[in-house]
């Protein structure tokens, strides 16, 4: 009896709080039929937003992976002063809320900030354009790859790498043929989470994008713009794209976790 009540309550909560919002998005987006959805999605401004979002993700992804692998290798394999402090700094972006993250970038890299101001005379502008969007996206996604790869590196140990070293392998060969096969899935897992976050980030990007119509609008910003314009179908149609992305992310995560249960345990 208790069992049935508890399961019933849990399912009811999940349905009301988690499933219903997603159902509402799809229902609103297709309220006027698939034709209206398609017309809204292929609207030039929305397409421009999709393009900017994809470009941002394509720049952020490789930088994230290179940084994540370097940081994990340095922290897992070497002792140096400030090792723990470095890890804390890498994880801090998870504790900083989006608006505050954006504000921090504006204060340093904006026209009135010490670095942004110094670059101003050379005509270099870092905020309110693609550079600004990329910079804050790097901030909000910086912990993902490290926190997946680092635990795996620590667990696998360095015996195999030392063996390769005594056999005369170069640093690159050790990484490519000994280390990388062990951490591939952890890296892919972290990279998927980071990319999904970069594509969906709203608050931090809203602060530094400048929100110039048809120019610096990423897809989440475009959704807000359409919504405030009372273009409901347009906003919800654009939202279905990001919802689909979220569902694909969940499925990919589930698949990787099923194949490689040894990956990091972060949700």
């Amino acid at each position, binding site marked *: 009896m208790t069992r049935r009540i508890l399961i019933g309550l*849990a399912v009811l909560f999940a349905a009301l709080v988690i499933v219903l919002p997603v159902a*509402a998005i799809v229902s609103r987006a297709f309220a006027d039929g698939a034709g209206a959805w398609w017309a809204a999605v292929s609207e030039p401004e929305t397409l421009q937003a999709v393009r900017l979002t994809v470009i941002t993700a394509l720049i952020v992804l490789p930088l994230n992976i290179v940084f994540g*692998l370097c940081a994990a290798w340095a922290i897992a394999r070497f002792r140096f002063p400030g090792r723990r402090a470095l890890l804390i700094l890498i994880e801090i972006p998870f504790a900083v809320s*989006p608006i505050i993250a954006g504000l921090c970038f504006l204060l340093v890299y904006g026209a009135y900030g010490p670095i942004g101001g110094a670059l101003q005379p050379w005509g270099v502008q870092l905020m309110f354009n693609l550079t600004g969007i990329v910079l804050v996206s790097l901030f909000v996604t910086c*912990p993902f790859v490290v926190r997946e790869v680092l635990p795996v590196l620590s667990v696998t140990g*360095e015996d195999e790498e030392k063996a390769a070293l005594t056999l005369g392998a170069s640093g690159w060969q050790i990484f490519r043929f000994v280390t990388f096969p062990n951490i591939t899935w952890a890296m892919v897992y972290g990279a998927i989470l980071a990319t999904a976050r970069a594509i969906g980030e709203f608050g931090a990007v809203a*602060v530094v994008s400048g929100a110039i119509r048809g120019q610096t609008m990423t897809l989440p910003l475009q959704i807000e713009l359409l919504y405030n314009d009372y273009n409901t179908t347009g906003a919800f149609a654009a*939202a279905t794209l990001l919802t689909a992305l979220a569902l694909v992310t969940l499925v990919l995560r589930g698949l990787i976790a099923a194949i490689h249960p040894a990956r990091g345990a*972060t*949700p």
Partner: protein
Amino acid sequence: MPVLQTPLKRLPRRRRSPLPGLGLTLGVTVTFVTLIVLLPLLGLGWQLGQLGWSDYIFVMTDSRTLAALRITLTAAAAATVANGLFGLLLAWVLVRYRFPGRAALDALVDLPFALPTAVAGIALVSLYSQNGWIGALTAPFGFEIAYSWAGIVIAMIFTSVPFAVRAIQPLIEELDPAEEAAALTLGASRWQIFRAVTLPQLMPGILTGTGLSFVRSLGEFGAVIFIAGNIPFETEIASLLIMIRLDEFDYPAAAAIAGTMLALSLILLVAINIAQTRLYRRFETGA
């Protein structure tokens, strides 16, 4: 996701690792972290330093700032209590019972993490506004959830419920069924068993889960602003007020509010980590 607690293994004491790549990888890491994390955070500190104490007090005691802080803190607290209860319920059901759709329910719990906040925001407002599926049900009773404090709470519950579930779940998995069985043979009722045997062992998870949920709720922006209504003194959250001050180019005011919120979050996170370590230690020593 747990914040600031990736396990860090102690390395053996020695002069130098024979492995190559320290210079290159540490160089890349330090450069990246300096440009992307450290300088922006220092920028906030620098701006706060320029502000001076009296200006800081002036900004923070402004009635609109105080109202925004009060709304944010109370809504986050309410959402956290709800998430503690629902998190415990969901985690318990997911671990203890086998039923059709369990795997789907387990996967669904992560959906709020995966769904971009702006999408969650417009989805929630369309549900809870007068002509939405849920809003239409409550409207006849003169009770509107959207554009009110309750709406803010709903949005905060949505974005942070996975923290609670995922923090409590592993602890329920680790519970020893023999202890509950022993209590049962000693004549304890099911409620007594839960209260005296099970719940204390789940406390570290409940603490972490609700703590992370609270911190996340304090800073939530995208999911909240659509449903909040954003009326100053009534439904304006702190994050939005920071954004408004920025749009007015009032950087000092924005920095003062942001610095306060960030300090509060970091202090809470550190406190959670310390409390959690202590609770775990108490169970390990069996006290």
